[in-house]
């Protein structure tokens, strides 16, 4: 492995170690390591820092991708929207940081939720713009009937899988805003899944290529985002505290993979 390879591998090693750290916390919360050294507050500080770093890096790299593409390139607005979506999530995370770093608590709902909710239309718009760009460039995105069938399939899966998962969360008593927000995130994820499912068709055909790597990372990141939001809904509404480490792990993986995808795309444009 040469110097460049080692430098390229290091961020993935950090991401893998971070995921392992929180998986370890979820599995052995009473072990000496987590009881004495990696206390819940320290782990919250590490998670908060990693999320901020990945989100800011992802936003910066996505913006640089936008900057590298010529003005008439149809993918340019998509990278800008992705950058704004990540930046909005970063601001939300940043507004939670003082509470997490100094008081070991994560207020909910809070001003952070405004930024988190705002990020979804931006991320969804980014994917829709990319989908439109691929279709107009002549890449196989499927006929209208095929696309309608995929969307209908997602709708059916959402009805079968997501509704039973979210019913206990929606049924919990509590402040209306809390309940609306807790359900809103997974619902927004389902909307996000629609363009993602359509893009999966393109992404699968890109496998084994540089562009395929970009999509593998981005799609993986968005899938972890959806998983994180559903786990958060359970954690928040049903008081499932044991899910806290898994929620952190999924968000760290999500932001890390999306940032990695943006970085890989930037490398492709810079080469």
């Amino acid at each position, binding site marked *: 492995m040469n110097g460049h390879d080692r430098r390229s591998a290091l961020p993935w090693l950090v991401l893998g170690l971070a995921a392992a750290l929180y998986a370890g916390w979820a599995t052995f919360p009473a072990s000496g390591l987590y009881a004495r050294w990696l206390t819940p507050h320290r782990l919250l500080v590490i998670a908060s820092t990693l999320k901020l770093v990945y989100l800011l890096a992802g936003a910066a790299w996505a913006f640089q991708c936008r900057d590298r593409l010529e003005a008439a*390139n149809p*993918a340019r607005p998509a990278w800008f929207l992705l950058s704004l979506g990540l930046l909005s999530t970063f601001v939300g995370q940043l507004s939670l940081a003082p509470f997490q770093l100094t008081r070991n608590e994560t207020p909910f709902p809070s001003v952070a939720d405004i930024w988190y909710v705002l990020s979804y239309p931006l991320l969804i718009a980014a994917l829709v713009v990319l989908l439109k760009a691929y279709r107009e*460039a002549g*890449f196989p995105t499927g006929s209208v009937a095929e696309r309608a069938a995929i969307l209908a399939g997602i709708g059916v899966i959402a009805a079968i899988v997501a509704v039973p998962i979210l019913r206990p969360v929606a049924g919990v008593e509590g402040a209306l805003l809390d309940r609306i927000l807790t359900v809103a995130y997974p619902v927004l994820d389902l909307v996000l899944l629609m363009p993602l499912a359509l893009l999966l068709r393109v992404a699968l*055909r*890109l496998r*084994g290529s540089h*562009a395929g790597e970009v999509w593998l990372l981005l799609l993986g990141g968005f899938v972890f985002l959806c998983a994180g939001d559903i786990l958060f809904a359970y954690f928040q509404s049903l008081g499932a505290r044991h899910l806290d480490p898994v929620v952190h792990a999924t968000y760290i993986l999500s932001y890390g993979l999306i940032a990695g995808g943006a970085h890989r795309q930037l490398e492709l*444009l810079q080469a």
Partner: protein
Amino acid sequence: MTTNEAVEVMARVLAPYIGDTMARSATAAHCQKLGIEAGTVSHEQLEALLGKLGGGLNIFLGRDRSASVIAEARSALAAREGSQ
């Protein structure tokens, strides 16, 4: 040069960037749109096809990189033609 040979050469050049499956399906789709059928393909038809593929590559690679990959494909096609 036949259409199949041209598709083969182009797919080989484009595959590292957009994958073999996408390279072949995109080339085939553009051939269909441009009315390029099986059999011998003309120089003008190849240029039109390269233009379409370049437009698509722009999305992934940007204009400059896309232009260099298309130039690479053009050279590979010329080499193939010269060897026949």
